[in-house]
């Protein structure tokens, strides 16, 4: 059965590249344009969430917090994919419950390696 990954980023270019990379590897992908949009797409059928940090309406750290209190999605691993350089932000993401932190730009094989390692 295919695994489903939610990608949350306000950049259409990044969403495109993440979606294609994951779909090429056999994953189903759901896209969300920011944290608020991602919140509305949470479900128990998700295998992973990949999120940016700096987004309008609800940023990535806020989203992680919401995920960890969501009744169906609280155990879904969350990988942060960001240009963010602030160590405090990284710590905040870690404290909120993030699983991994990837700095952009990413190579497709790097992203896949992280996904495969997290999902096992």
């Amino acid at each position: 059965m295919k695994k489903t990954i939610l990608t949350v980023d306000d950049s259409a270019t990044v969403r495109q590249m993440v979606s294609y990379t994951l779909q090429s590897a056999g994953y189903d992908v759901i896209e969300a344009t920011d944290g608020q949009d991602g919140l509305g797409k949470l479900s128990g059928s998700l295998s992973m969430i990949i999120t940016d940090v700096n987004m309008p309406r609800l940023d990535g750290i806020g989203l992680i917090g919401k995920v960890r209190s969501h009744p169906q999605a609280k155990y879904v691993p969350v990988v942060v994919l960001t240009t963010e350089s602030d160590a405090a932000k990284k710590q905040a993401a870690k404290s909120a419950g993030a699983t991994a932190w990837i700095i952009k730009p990413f190579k497709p094989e790097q992203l896949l390696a992280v996904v495969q390692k997290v999902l096992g």
Partner: protein
Amino acid sequence: MLASLAAFARRVQGGGKSKDAAGAFPEVCAKLRGIASSTEDEFLGAGARLMPLQRQAQTIAAGATSLAEVLERGVGPLGVLAEVVKQAAGSDAGELAGWIEEIERESRQIQRAIQAIAPIVRSFDVMGVLTRIESSRFAGGGASFEGLAASVGALSLEIREKVAATSDSAAVLLAGTTRAANDMRRLTGEQRQQLAALTHRTHAELEKIRAHHVQVTESGTRMAERFGRVSAAIGEVVSGLQAHDIVRQQIEHIVAALEGASKASAAGTALLQAAQLEHSTATFRDSVHQVRAALQEVERTMQEVSNESLAILGHGSGDHSFLATVEAGVKEIVTILEDHSTADHALAEAAAEVYQRTAEIARTVAGVYTISIEMQRIALNSTIQAARLGQEGSALEAVAGAIRSLADQTEEASNGLQSRLEKVQGVVEALNEAAGLRAGAGAGERIDRLRDAAAALAEAEEQANNRLDQTVAYIESLAAEIHQAVESFGTHEESIQAMQDSIDRLRAAAGDAKAVDLAAAQPAAYTMQSEWAVHRAVAGGDAPSEPEAVGAAQDNVEFF
């Protein structure tokens, strides 16, 4: 980059303030928002085009690697084909032809020997007449030679009939062996001419196929490596496209800083954001150049690979001359072997007929021999009886003597004929044994192996050619797509110029603003280390303290 920013910062220090610095900000913000929006479409388009190409390149590389495996399946049948073709060339009908010719020679000798008996038979007829004449002289007398005359007459008649039958049989025998000998000579000649040249040609084509296989296998390995590199290069391009997102965020921060600037901080803000925008423009320009250069490099590599691959792979795709020649050659060999097999059966039949006919002749000759012995007995009796008659019986004695002499000749001729007939039968037996070996398991098995190997080779070649056709089609499609990707990505000169114009506008707005003026500028919502670095370069010692930066992670990734 940052060194040039520092130099720029030193240049602007000590200048005066522009009175209407903030007035330029709305125009600059509108322009920057437009740039971010318009470039996104082109970057999205390039990404949408390139990522499927990466998958295609990986598919071609995998196909090229598996091509060698497909060709490997043809190696076994090739080896069998080569071996069987060689064996077919080696089978020699010369030995059989030699025996046939010997049978033909002996058949001629037999016919001559039988023809040599004809005068004896005629002499027997004469003796029979003379015997009746001499016998009649003694009719009614004390001695009776009527029985002698009747016996001689009957025996000479019988011997004539037998010799005539033998002569007919010998003629048929000779005709049959001559025909068989001619067929064998023809077949032997044909085999030496056709089969040798044919197998040489088939061998040469098989070697060409082997060499082609090696070439394609090596090319497949090279192609797999090259397409692997193309795939990696496209991956680099995809990474480079992400720079758009980075620049977009930087522009958002610049716009936010400009829109949030007060009148008092306008000049300092303009100074700082001009530096930030200059840095973003350089990032954007570099990424565009990087992506275009990588795309063009991929296109060049694809062209080289296409040319080489089509030159080598095109040999097997659509061009079946190698296999067609081998297939035609194998068909001819099979036909010739089947002809030989048919000829061998005909030879066996002819040999059986020779054996039967020689047996018939032998039986007839045995009958002649028996008659000759009987003649000798009658002649001896007649001689004895004629001798008793004294002078009167002298003529009859002479006739009896002549009959005896003829009988002796007949006996000798019969013995000679029997020897030749036995010799012919011996050669026929040896011929049957040799022909049986050739026409038995040997030829039939070779024909089956030839057919099986040719069929297996044809199947392997067809699979390889289909794979080659697919690979060639993929290559051509990939090359065309990459060319389109290069063409459609463009140079983004307009966007870069628009950013440069905005930089100039901000610098003009900054006027003679000094680094100390930056103290009043609110630090923008920087999220990237590069933004902080630019700020430091422009503000120098007056830069606000920046938050602790994310530590360098290995390969951009950190697991919690």
